[in-house]
């Protein structure tokens, strides 16, 4: 006999997939790394809690709103067709309310922590939900630029919370994320090209060509590593940490060039995964350098 599921278990199954835990976690780490890059004491518990809580809620809220708006696309793509909104397990109005509540609490909390910090978090959410998802994603492949800008906001916000102002190091960190986004998203759009075609979402492979897309990935990888290199100099990473960053950057660059020279499904997948690991590692380096 099946045991009745608790309300908590049902809510978890309906709403947890809406926040894309890995993506949200990675963006949260960039925010914490941005804050720690300002050499902030980690034991400043109230500020760290405020940063973590507000950022987590705002990012989760914007992700849920994206999923709510893109539910028709998700239903048409085999990769995303099992998501709770596509299967009907979560009703659209439930997802909308969930996303709005998380976003409003997250932004309000962020504004109470610090006005400038809160405004940057709000602009990230605005670029992501309104400009990227609602306005541009179905119109142009270049929408990823705006996705990239919103992706760079958590690290900039964290840095601003640590320093009290927007400085060139924060901009360089945000640019690093902005240039990293194409490496991440474009390898994804190559791997799931047919899915996106099926859903009529314009991507670089469908608008231009696979080879052009790979060239853009290689160029953006170089720009991302340069931006992180400049930022880590500004952060004041020790030589040991800088050497490790150079090694990781070289790995990303070589994989991108390899994907250009002899493209294959394996290299594309490797580049996609490595790019995520690269971002995580770069942020952890900034984080630990700040302790």
């Amino acid at each position, binding site marked *: 006999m099946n045991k009745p599921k608790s309300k908590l278990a049902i809510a978890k199954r309906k709403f947890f997939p809406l926040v894309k835990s890995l993506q949200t976690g990675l963006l949260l780490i960039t925010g914490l790394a941005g804050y720690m890059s300002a050499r902030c004491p980690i034991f400043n518990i109230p500020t760290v809690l405020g940063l973590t809580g507000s950022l987590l809620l705002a990012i989760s809220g914007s992700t849920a709103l994206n999923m709510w708006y893109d539910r028709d696309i998700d239903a048409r793509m085999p990769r995303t067709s099992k998501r709770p909104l596509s299967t009907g397990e979560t009703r659209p109005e439930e997802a909308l309310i969930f996303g709005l509540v998380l976003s409003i609490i997250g932004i309000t909390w962020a504004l109470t922590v610090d006005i400038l910090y809160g405004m940057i978090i709000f602009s990230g959410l605005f670029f992501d939900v309104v400009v990227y998802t609602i306005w541009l994603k179905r119109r142009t492949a270049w929408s990823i630029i705006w996705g990239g800008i919103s992706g760079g906001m958590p690290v900039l916000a964290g840095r601003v919370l640590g320093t009290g102002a927007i400085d060139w190091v924060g901009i360089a960190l945000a640019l690093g994320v902005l240039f990293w986004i194409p490496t991440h998203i474009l390898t994804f759009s190559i791997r799931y090209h047919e899915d996106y075609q099926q859903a009529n979402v314009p991507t670089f492979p469908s608008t231009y060509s696979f080879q052009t897309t790979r060239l853009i990935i290689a160029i953006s990888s170089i720009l991302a590593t340069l931006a992180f290199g400049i930022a880590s100099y500004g952060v004041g990473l*020790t030589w*040991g*940490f800088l*050497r*490790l960053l*150079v*090694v*990781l950057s*070289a*790995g990303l660059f*070589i*994989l991108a060039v390899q994907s250009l020279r002899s493209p294959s499904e*394996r290299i594309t*997948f*490797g580049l996609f*995964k*490595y790019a995520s*690991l690269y971002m995580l590692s770069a942020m952890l380096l900034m984080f630990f350098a700040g302790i």
Partner: protein
Amino acid sequence: MYKITIRDRLLLLATVLLAAYQIIAGLDGLSPLSIWIYTTGFGILLVACLLLIILGFEGLESQGVVIVSTAIPLSISLGLVSVHLPSCFFPYLGFGATGVTRFVLRGKAPTLVLALVHGTAGLVIILLPLILSIQGQVPAGYLLVSLGGGLIGLGGLLLAFLRAGKPLLSQEVIYQLLPLILFLMSLSFLGGFSFW
């Protein structure tokens, strides 16, 4: 094809962390040249292990593996020569550079060149710390570097014969052993270099 397991991934991750530690903190007190040479060796090891974690052992089918497996011992042996035999550094660098000729040679010559460079690099890593230790120029703990050299030689031999179609052990056994060999090798290098 042997599928990578959780145990393999954990061992490879531990190797990545050891290599990262060596790059960040394990090279203090050396000249900038030696630091960058060692960084190259441990960096290639780190990225190669990350790719093995991501792609699994199917990544070892690539031709590039042979080059990478040569570059690691060559860099570490170059680092040892730059520290302990600085007068021999440039001749040894010139010898190592002959490995590049494999890209223009045809037939069996590229394999012979790689075997020569790889073999010599392995011998340098094993013998140099051993001789220095016997002469009392370095602490006995530095012999761990020799052990690391032995392990990298073992791994290189197993992979080279496998690639040549004359495996010393079955492919499955080699792939099962490889993460452990890489981990123990990194541990030995880390331990050995800590005595410098």
